[in-house]
């Protein structure tokens, strides 16, 4: 029971616990705060997996950006302090069954594959590798993945144009 396993278990409990609360909380703003806790725990997982740039990106982008917008929309849309209508809609039972089947299906498949239970990384028989990733990511993004790198800017422009279009006051 190494320290790494202990920290992993802590993050796992935090992630799944707050994720459950995100989908069951009545007050929408509390859902958003629990989602922030989940995103933080997942940033912790990235650190445990040696992806330090990704952990910073997750905190900078998801928690510092997307969740800020989510809180803006919640505050601008006057969600009542004590919501009246129930959290779940009519089809929650079939939804629960569907999700249960999905989880069991995935679990069953990873149980059957060949490398189940293998300890060390398959490709390299040395221990885990923890090295700074920003430089190699930059090298990869700008040489081999140059095309998706440029397409991303087009996606961002499209997102911005669409969002500005929707939030502009209709000139009625």
């Amino acid at each position, binding site marked *: 029971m190494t320290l790494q396993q202990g920290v992993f278990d802590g993050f796992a409990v935090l992630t799944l616990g707050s994720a459950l609360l995100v989908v069951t909380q009545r007050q929408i703003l509390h859902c958003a705060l629990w989602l922030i806790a989940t995103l933080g725990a997942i940033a912790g997982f990235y650190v445990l997996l040696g992806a330090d740039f990704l952990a910073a990106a997750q905190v900078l982008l998801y928690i510092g950006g997307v969740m800020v917008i989510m809180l803006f929309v919640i505050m601008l849309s006057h969600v009542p302090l004590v919501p009246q209508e129930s959290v779940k809609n009519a089809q929650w039972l079939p939804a629960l069954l569907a999700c249960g089947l999905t989880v069991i299906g995935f679990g069953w498949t990873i149980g059957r594959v060949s490398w189940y239970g293998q300890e060390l990384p398959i490709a390299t028989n040395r221990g885990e590798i923890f090295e700074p990733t920003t430089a190699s990511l930059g090298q990869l993004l700008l*040489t081999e993945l140059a095309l998706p790198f440029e397409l991303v800017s087009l996606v961002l422009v499209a997102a911005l144009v669409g969002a500005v279009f929707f939030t502009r*006051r209709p000139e009625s």
Partner: protein
Amino acid sequence: MLQQYAHVLLFVGLGTIFALGAFVLSFLLRERGHDPRTRVPYECGVEPVGTPRVRLNVRFYIFALLFVIFDVETLYIYPWAVVARPLGIAGFWEMVVFIAILFLALLYAWRKEAFRWE
């Protein structure tokens, strides 16, 4: 590398413990006042008018929206900046194209008077 991030986790933990400790200390030391009137939302002394959730304008959303788009952009500029020297001039022009396209997005938002308030 994991040892560094354990240190960061300690930083966050210690900050939280310090904050909660100060709260508990204040809870022990502070005076108790149970006058309900002190718990009325503060509105320069006059009786509060209307519900606290007053109708707010949408214009604040535009800035958070632009922030996310350009925050994503900085996320791509940082890995380039770190390896800009070995990459040479090709990487630089690639980045200039990336920045130019997003600069157009900023001009679009500017021309669409996203910043002017009626």
